[in-house]
């Protein structure tokens, strides 16, 4: 009898505890405001797979990020946790930096607010233009470091970066690219732009016409790595013509179940948002792709193929 009463009390306690848990969970869900996302994993528990050597070029990569949604904020928060641990000091943006309208509020909600901790820490963002970007507003927006141009180049240590406007690859831009790649003294030459040259994603596919125009220049002047977005997934492409290709278009947007047959990709990920960390140390490029959840979905070490 006593035992039965005890069990009843136990059940009541369990029920109250479960209700309390459910209520707490509910209040968390109710706060589904991008600005109120929970803290990312602490730096001490981070899985870091880049070598963090001295005097290397270390940066993050995001693509198709500017939604202003909760997922973008959570990726940004994960990036900040990794910045504290890895001290990367710049980010390259692969286009679609601001989706939809481009009012001052949009710049705040879709860029300034999510990346505030990074911006406050002095991290520089270098943008390229996507099809959802406003070329005039964004090239003139100082925090995107485009210097007022649709396409531009900059140097970080031994690496030379070329941000291209793949929306509008006119003869003038091709001639600029030819000249700048030819004159570049960078040991590593890295190009980044929105539309991928190789792509297994079914939503957009590769841009074959763009590839025909830029690839001969990449090969002639020894471009080593190419980063693109547009397709809302992550892909590491089989190296083609001695060049490494990455597609990262899921730092805000996401297209789940987007992959068809694996023709070009070595690794693909289409079930969560992600960003990349890259470290260039001498003749090696180290990379790590991290999902919004914190899981490392790809990593590796790539030797520089061109002499």
């Amino acid at each position, binding site marked *: 009898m006593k035992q039965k009463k005890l069990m009843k009390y136990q059940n009541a306690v369990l029920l109250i505890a479960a209700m309390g848990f459910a209520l707490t969970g509910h209040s968390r869900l109710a706060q589904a405001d991008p600005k109120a996302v929970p803290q990312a994993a602490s730096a001490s528990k981070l899985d870091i797979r880049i070598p963090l050597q001295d005097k290397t070029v270390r940066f993050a990569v995001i693509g198709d990020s500017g939604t202003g949604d909760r997922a973008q904020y959570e990726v940004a928060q994960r990036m900040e946790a990794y910045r504290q641990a890895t001290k990367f000091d710049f980010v390259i943006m692969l286009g679609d930096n601001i989706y939809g309208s481009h009012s*001052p509020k949009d710049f705040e909600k879709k860029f300034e607010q999510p990346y505030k901790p990074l911006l406050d820490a002095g991290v520089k963002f270098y943008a390229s233009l996507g099809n959802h970007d406003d070329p005039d*507003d964004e090239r003139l927006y100082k925090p995107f470091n485009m210097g*007022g141009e649709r396409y531009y180049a900059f140097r970080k240590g031994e690496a030379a970066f070329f941000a291209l406007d793949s929306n509008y690859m006119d003869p003038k831009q091709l001639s600029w690219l030819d000249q700048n790649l030819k004159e570049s003294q960078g040991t590593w030459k890295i190009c980044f732009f929105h539309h991928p040259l190789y792509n297994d994603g079914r939503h957009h596919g590769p841009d*074959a*016409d763009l590839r025909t*125009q830029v690839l001969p220049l990449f090969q002639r002047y020894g471009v080593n790595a190419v980063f693109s977005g547009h397709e809302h997934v992550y892909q590491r492409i089989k190296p083609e013509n001695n060049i490494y290709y990455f597609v990262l278009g899921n730092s805000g947007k996401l297209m789940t179940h987007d992959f068809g047959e694996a023709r070009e990709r070595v690794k693909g990920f289409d079930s969560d948002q992600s960003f990349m960390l890259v470290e260039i140390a001498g003749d090696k490029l180290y990379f790590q792709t991290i999902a919004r959840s914190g899981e490392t979905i790809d990593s590796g070490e790539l030797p520089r193929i061109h002499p």
Partner: protein
Amino acid sequence: MKHTCRSWLSLILLSIFLFSCAIAQKGDQGPVKEFQDRIDNYLSAKKKQDIEKKPTDSPGKLAQEKQQTAEKSQQARPEAQRGDIFTPAVSAYFKKQIESTLHGPEGSRVRASLRHAEPLPDVHLQVNAKYPKNLPLQSTPPTLLKNLPPLPKELQYRIVGSALVLYDMSAGLVVDFIPGAVPAA
């Protein structure tokens, strides 16, 4: 004797080919020149009232300057209408260039590029009005850009549905357009 005849025949055929090329090129010079003159007029009218934009930290300033540039550009040509830049002769030239690009040796690649570029629906376009709000800018295939007359940096060709649009980047305005210039890829 046989060899000499063959050489003469080749020479005559080559001359005919070069002559027809020269005629075709001369025929194209008219509309291209007309187009470039009209572009020059557009820009010189616009430049008289233009605002010099510089990089800024303030998206508010960017929005304000864009609005001012749009208003001034609109005021510079209050009577603007379709065909001001793309006159019938110029339109015919552009349609011919687009047609030959889409069905030339690189046509299948250019058409594939158009299909993969997040094609836009046919929307209502209006000359001297703002580019439709929140509508992405579809990429324009590089091979097509090579076959169209070059533009100054303020202007771009854009494809919206089946229309070829002349887009003023700094003002965000539709300068002119050719409906039905780009058939479905």
